[in-house]
């Protein structure tokens, strides 16, 4: 755990140094690399643990999600969203959902994000404005309700009264494989699958119609 904390602190310090002295790029980069390498050598036994890797992927996921929201240029946001989707697919692999992890990379990071990149390049957008924070009552209402929502979320997670945790076997036979997923999709959930196909066709027709030159 010390290694992860140290690396997070190093990343934050490097970002802070970059912000404080934008002219000297080399100093924070060299200092960050050296201190990260020292940390890696000193706490190298942490590298074998699952916690370190899960935490590192989680850190990258949160950071990239924040950059998606905060970066002024849509092109950069979409690239960070792809990074975030790849991190989530690593989470799926940790939860032994192999098929879904692969589908996440192929369908989400591959197909859907290509659509986003394509449209952003087509539109030729400028990097816009800053953030729009709202005024007066709206802002304070957002702060109050947002912190209330976050507090509720974490309270629920802390006081979760499930059945006692049974350590599930790491790789149950067939759990998360394409065969099992397909059996469920075309067995128990066959109606939902057909409905999804109709939905896809409707969306495709709608998209083609909306993107036509003249809308009438």
């Amino acid at each position: 755990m010390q290694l992860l904390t140290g690396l997070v602190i190093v990343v934050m310090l490097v970002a802070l140094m970059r912000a404080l002295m934008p002219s000297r790029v080399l100093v924070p980069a060299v200092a960050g690399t050296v201190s990260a390498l020292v940390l890696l050598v000193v706490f190298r036994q942490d590298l074998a643990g699952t916690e370190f890797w899960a935490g590192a992927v989680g850190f990258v996921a949160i950071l990239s999600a924040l950059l998606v929201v905060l970066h002024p240029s849509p092109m950069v946001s979409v690239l960070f969203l792809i990074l975030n989707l790849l991190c989530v697919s690593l989470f799926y692999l940790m939860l032994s959902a192999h098929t879904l992890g692969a589908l996440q990379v192929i369908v989400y990071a591959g197909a859907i994000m290509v659509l986003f990149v394509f449209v952003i390049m087509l539109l030729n957008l400028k990097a816009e404005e800053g953030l729009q924070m709202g005024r007066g009552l709206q802002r304070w209402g957002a702060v109050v309700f947002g912190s209330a929502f976050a507090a509720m979320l974490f309270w629920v997670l802390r006081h979760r009264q499930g059945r006692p945790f049974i350590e599930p076997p790491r790789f149950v036979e067939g759990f998360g494989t394409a065969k099992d997923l397909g059996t469920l999709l075309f067995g128990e959930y066959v109606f939902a699958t057909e409905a999804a196909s109709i939905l896809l066709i409707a969306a495709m027709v709608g998209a083609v119609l909306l993107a036509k030159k003249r809308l009438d």
Partner: protein
Amino acid sequence: MRIDFFLVMAALLFTIGCVGVLVRRNVIVMLMSIELMLNAANLTFVAFSHELQSMTGHVFALFVITVAACEAAVGLAIVLALFRRRQTTDVDDVSLLRW
């Protein structure tokens, strides 16, 4: 592996996406934030699916991905049509149907 870590991650990602929808005024970034939220919901589905050792959560995550694909296609088509007509992607410039 306890799934609490993944639930906290999903909660954080969902909150960030929600803030993105509320704070940004660019339609494309808002659509991306919606994708973030859908992903957080998916992560919760898969985490509970792992804890209960039942594949149903995976099936629902797959359907969520399908719906996200449809939503992205239609949403981006609307953005294209909007940009062609108004030369903007700012939601504040498109307020005809708003109260």
